[in-house]
């Protein structure tokens, strides 16, 4: 293949990435700024870690982070189970009753505006409470259910596309050698597509962790998630603690992505090349 260097393309890429990263880098830089105004650099007292101490002792934020963590973990685990089942069904079973509906239901959440999904979920919970008495008020349960509903759509896409490139002969060979279909799934398919499932888990976790709109609609008193707290602070303007939060988030995400991609590169060498 001829890798021709086009200066136009290179310039575009450079500008594009600069556009993507300058805001992020500016947040990181100003997290070390002593001034409360955040963007006005206080060279006398900066760089400083004082906002880092402040954040890590901020009760409101820490409580919210804990709630976000709980919801995100449960959501990711549930979404992975539902999404893997759906993804497997859509990838392997070419015909079954309700296939069209299932396909539509797993692609719609990907594009639907969150305000609509959030609103509809809240109205559902209210109606359910009226009719059968559960859920009693909104809180962690309703939030988790809401998150799982849209997270599983993403997991389905990830699993489905992984299975599409999976050599079905591997499953057939296992059956040929005497393994029943369920065994084949757990002993052959699952271990091989595991990196995709893991990335689906991480994707669901991140979506839940960062979610604002659906959380706002489906939460109740005392169940504020981290994004909800951040949003209420940020509506009033800039805040140095938020910069610190951003820096911590970015660092963690970067480390995780690098780790996962290294592992996936190793894992992809395992599968046969035709």
């Amino acid at each position, binding site marked *: 293949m001829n890798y021709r260097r086009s200066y136009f393309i290179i310039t575009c890429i450079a500008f594009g990435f600069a556009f993507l990263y300058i805001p992020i880098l500016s947040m990181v830089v100003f997290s070390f700024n002593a001034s409360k105004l955040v963007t006005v650099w206080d060279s006398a007292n900066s760089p400083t870690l004082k906002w880092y101490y402040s954040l890590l002792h901020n009760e409101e934020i820490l409580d919210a982070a804990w709630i976000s963590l709980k919801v995100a973990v449960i959501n990711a685990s549930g979404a992975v189970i539902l999404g893997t089942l759906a993804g497997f069904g859509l990838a392997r079973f070419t015909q079954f009753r309700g296939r069209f509906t299932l396909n539509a239901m797993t692609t719609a959440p990907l594009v639907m505006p969150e305000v609509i999904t959030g609103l509809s979920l809240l109205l559902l919970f209210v109606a359910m409470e009226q009719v059968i008495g559960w859920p009693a008020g909104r809180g962690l349960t309703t939030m988790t259910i809401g998150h799982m509903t849209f997270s599983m759509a993403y997991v389905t896409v990830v699993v489905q596309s992984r299975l599409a490139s999976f050599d079905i002969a591997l499953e057939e*060979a296992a059956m040929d050698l005497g393994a029943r279909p369920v065994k084949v799934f757990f002993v052959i398919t699952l271990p091989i597509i595991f990196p995709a499932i893991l990335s689906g888990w991480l994707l669901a976790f991140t979506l839940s962790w960062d979610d604002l709109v659906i959380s706002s609609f489906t939460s109740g008193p005392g169940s504020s998630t981290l994004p909800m707290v951040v949003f209420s602070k940020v509506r009033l303007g800039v805040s140095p603690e938020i910069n610190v939060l951003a820096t911590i988030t970015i660092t963690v995400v970067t480390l995780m992505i690098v780790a996962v991609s290294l592992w996936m590169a190793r894992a992809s060498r*395992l599968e046969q090349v035709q």
Partner: protein
Amino acid sequence: MANSAPAVKAAPWNDPATRPYVEIERVTKSFGDFKAVDDVSLKIYKGEIFCLLGASGCGKTTLLRMLGGFETPSSGRIFIDGEDMTGVPPYERPVNMMFQSYALFPHMSVEQNVAFGLKQDGVPKAEIADRVATMLELVKLGGLGKRKPHQLSGGQKQRVALARSLVKRPKLLLLDEPLGALDKKLREHTQFELVSLQDKLGVTFIVVTHDQEEAMTLASRIGVMNHGEIVQAGTPSEIYEFPGSKFVADFVGSVNIFEGKLIEDEPEHIRIASDELGATIYVSHGISAPPEATVWAAIRPEKVFMSTAQPEGVDNVVRGAVQDIAYLGDLSIYLVVLPTGKVVRVTQPNTSRHAEAITWDQQVYLSWDSTSPVVVTR
């Protein structure tokens, strides 16, 4: 090269008393309106290497997959060792398959791959270890047991796939284009290894291939397929020397086909008037066909003699000019154009290093023995 002697001693297909090991009874497989396999009936005997030969899309792979249980026939039945196996899933059949892509489990070692089938059957651990080790020795992979598939070469992967499918001692082994991914030299070498392995183990093989050379080398019998049907089934020499149709004659090996009209039809000889040839063909055996029927005479290139001097006392002679020569080392292929415009393909072994070379545009005489042509009516 001569065909290696198959595992089966006498020709059981000629003995009506022998029970077929695999019986395919009027099997059809349709995908919507398309008939991939059309009313196929076949008897395969124990210890045979039976090759399904055909171009892509002819239905051979579908037929193989039905034998393996991966597709269910739309109609018809399949018997293996006397039992009706139609509709039985692959994990309940005494049949194993070697896949075209080998399908080695990438997350398991060579040993674990080979042991997989035995584990599913609940064979005790010690016995598994023993049988796996023996099988790996047999396919000449001893010592590579701990490696993972991505650490093996193409030929090694193929042998692991073979070991894995044979270790369960199946009644029937199905092979889907087993040698397709190997390069020429390795392919030839593996062909003979396969036959000797089959002979040692006595397993019945059914091989699917589009490579007729492969079929001729491996098979005790070949079934030529076209458009979902078995067009002809027989031993390699039967298929080659006595093709039943133009299609088979043309598909297996190269052939010259002359179309003509039957003008003389006697029990011990016939004459065909061929405009393509520009002469009559005298064939010294009888065929059954209506008078004045259109028939085709098929003559193999190696059975056509080419000479610069007119041959004496031969029934079939024509003249032509050499149009093209391909020198292949052990033999040469000549394309000779006749006055009628028809091009005849002639092969001659290069028996002498300093032979009088026939060159382009040279006028030559082509002749053949009256027993050489095979006359087909379709």
